[in-house]
């Protein structure tokens, strides 16, 4: 029991350490695909180290919510790391929660981030906050329905059951693609949001963290990387269902994540960012795919 808890903690730390690398890989790939050289894949780590060494600039209008938010956001995504079996299907903190709890815990972080964005009394923060909750609430039905369909295919909502899907099933793949579309929205990627934009008026996630600097910004960026790796982990279970073993599990895991990163990078460079109200159609489409996957699950495909 003690040993297992220890392994689970190691696994969570492994996820946290790996998370910025995935962002770095996607960034590098995008640049290479655009015929640019691009920054090193370790750039997110350099950014982190640079930011934590800096002083902070904090708006005079803010309250304790603004200061507490980075800690709550990072803490909540860190909790989710304990819920996902990565290296072995039993390596997760069973009593803590199930696949549904993952979604609920993410909404805690988002709630505080949206509040903190309003706290500085600027228009950009309010704009980002409003857009973020707009996108998030319309993403919710697609997310939950696809997780329910995955659960139906495995007979349980327990993370270990979903992580040990055996072989491809058409319905699983279909709801996996719905989940993939949602994952692009949740990780602030094109076509829903653009992480590289410098124009405040088009920002969503970036506008929310506009007032943050120094150490707080470092924590929030780390939290965003972790959230991304969590979504990719769930996608990897659906698209690459192979039994995980503890010895070489981590290597397989990284390879799977790299393949997903390639997909994300190619998607990002081949699409343009959508207008905010087109995102509704996009998420509605994801929802329809999820419902369709339920129909296929129903007829046993």
């Amino acid at each position, binding site marked *: 029991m003690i040993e297992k808890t220890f392994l689970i903690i190691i696994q969570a730390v492994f996820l946290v350490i790996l998370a910025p690398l995935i962002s770095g890989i996607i960034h590098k790939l995008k640049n290479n695909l655009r015929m640019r050289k691009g920054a090193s894949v370790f750039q997110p780590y350099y950014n982190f180290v640079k930011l934590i060494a*800096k*002083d*902070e600039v*904090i*708006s*005079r*209008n803010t*309250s304790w*919510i603004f200061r507490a938010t980075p*800690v*709550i956001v*990072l*803490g909540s995504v860190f*909790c989710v790391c304990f819920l996902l079996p990565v290296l072995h299907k039993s390596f997760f903190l*069973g*009593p*803590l*929660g*199930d696949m*549904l*709890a993952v979604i*609920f*815990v993410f*909404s805690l972080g988002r*709630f505080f981030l949206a*509040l903190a964005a*309003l*706290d*500085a*009394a*600027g*228009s950009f923060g*309010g*704009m980002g*906050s*409003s857009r973020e909750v*707009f996108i*998030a*609430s*319309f993403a*919710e*039905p697609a997310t*939950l*329905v696809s997780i*329910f*369909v995955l*659960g139906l295919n495995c*007979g*349980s*909502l*327990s993370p270990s059951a979903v992580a040990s899907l055996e072989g491809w099933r058409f319905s699983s793949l279909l709801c996996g693609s719905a989940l993939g579309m949602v994952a692009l929205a949740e990780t602030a990627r094109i076509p829903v949001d653009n992480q590289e934009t410098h124009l405040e008026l088009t920002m969503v996630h970036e506008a929310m963290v506009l007032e943050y600097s*120094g*150490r707080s910004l470092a*924590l929030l960026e780390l939290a965003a990387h972790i959230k991304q790796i969590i979504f990719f982990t769930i996608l990897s279970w659906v698209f690459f269902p192979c039994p995980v073993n503890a010895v070489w599990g981590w290597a397989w895991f990284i390879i799977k994540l790299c393949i997903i990163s390639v997909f994300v990078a190619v998607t990002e460079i081949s699409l343009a960012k959508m207008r905010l*109200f087109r995102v*509704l159609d996009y998420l509605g489409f994801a*929802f329809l795919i999820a*419902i369709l996957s*339920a129909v296929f699950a*129903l007829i046993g495909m």
Partner: protein
Amino acid sequence: MEKFSYTGLFLFDGLSCFFLVVIALVSIPSAIFSIGYLSPCVSKIKFSLANILLVFFVFSMSMVVTSGNLFSFLVFWELMSLSSYFLVVFEHTHQRCVRAGTIYLVMTHMGTAFLIAAFAILYVHAGSFDFGAVKLAVLSMPQDMRNIVFLLLFIGFGTKAGVVPLHIWLPYAHPAAPAHVSSLMSGVMIKIAIYGMIRFFIMLLGVGPPWWGIVILVFGAASCLIGVIYALMDHDLKKLLAYHSVENIGIILLGLGIAMVFKGYPVTTIVLLGMSGALYHLVNHGLFKGLLFLCSGSVAKACGTLDIEKMGGLIKSMPVTAVCFLVGAMGISALPPLNGFVSEWLTFQAFFGALLSSQGGLKIFMLICVAVLALTSGLAAACFVKAFGITFLALPRSRAAQEAKESSLSMKVGMGILAVLVVLFGIGCGLIMPYICQVAQEVLGIENTLFSFNWFSLSLAPISPISISPIIFVFILAAVSLVLLAWFVLSPRKAVPCNTWDCGYYVLGARNEYTATAYSKPFRIAFSFFLLPYRKVEKIRDSFYHVRSFTYQTHTTKIFKQYFYDPLVGFTYNVAHKLRWLQPGSINLYISYIFIALTILILALVIL
């Protein structure tokens, strides 16, 4: 199976006691709150009057849930409606309150009329008002009759509960009443209607056809989605909360609906999960909605308004109210580790169980319900980011908000108790769940205990290997915070206070902040097919180039009011107008009316 006999005037079974606990949990803090809220601003006589009415209100609610027969149920139900009506029109000098009171009175009596009709049918079949006799008589009632009774009861209780489209009175009555009364009306009174549904649909009418459950699910889903959409559009703090009551009643009905659909199935776990989810959410909603209404009262007292567009920055001047509101907002948005999360999770688990054991179209229908519930919880969180963010964060938008002061001690105590309860019902879910499960089992007549409970997590252990543990969650969160805090203390960095980023133009003021209207604009556009928004723009020009003043208003159409209730009221007025010739005011004519009526009655008696 029958632990309690249904004979006698009073009834103290698990369900009644559960509701008594809910009533006590919300009414005690509300009463404490009312000391500081009401006494400084009204005369002594009026304060006493308010207290007497409050006592009557709480007493009648307690009597409704312990009534053992139809007759006393109805009497106390009416007493509950009337005492709450008088509390709604407590500030009778305001036109708004009187109007709200009238709408409430008309709606609630329409509901009661349906209840009386249903009770009359039950009485005719049972020959007695006793619940026990009714329960026996229902078994021999024809199915059509039972369906009619079900529909009558659903409309009757649905009016009180605020089920869409009968929700019309909530956004009027809740804002008009004093805060502690709205907290009781929304936190407890509308739950008494849910008590009625559970008592009659599940315990007395017994197993109905599955479409009863489907009806409940459909109306539950409609209520939660429509309630939350209207809540997003409303910027009056109490109206917003009133619409959230509609939403949460919807969530409770979803749990109840699952229990009713699957009552006849061999798998008892789904029924139990749905029922416990509904009961858990019921007590949770009482706690956080009571809390939020008390906070709104505290804010309204400090700012003199309920319009959140005129607030802002209150977290600095009213820290206790702000923290209490935040706790309530997190609870209602179903954020871990608070109580709303636990009950919504249970409801979702009931849906998952229902999905696993349903077939064909029912499965897809259940998935649609899941999607609606998911969308609702997303929108509710968005709405409370708006409500908390615009009210308490950033800069004050008016002078009143700038000069707001924290409330008095008794108000803080009232809010504090409820806030602590909201937290405890979240992290202590493993300890509370056995009691709720016990009540659910008694209601459903399921004998064996299905769940194994432990103190640190809420586990569905024998059914499914999953559980949630808000307490471990809090533990991990606290560990992360402590580590980060230690790091911050050990290697401090300078934090330079500065202005908010304004693109380098000039110093931003409160006028540059995002407003609630702007915040909810994306939702207004997304749901424009339902909200039918329109705007009023008024420009006064000096010349073509110079606009002296500019006003811009945006409104949404309340389609139920505009296309159902307004025509109905208009029709009633028309009919009354046409019948006015019957009442010319001559006393001789009236005496002849009485004479004719009497003659007809006697003739009818003789002939029949």
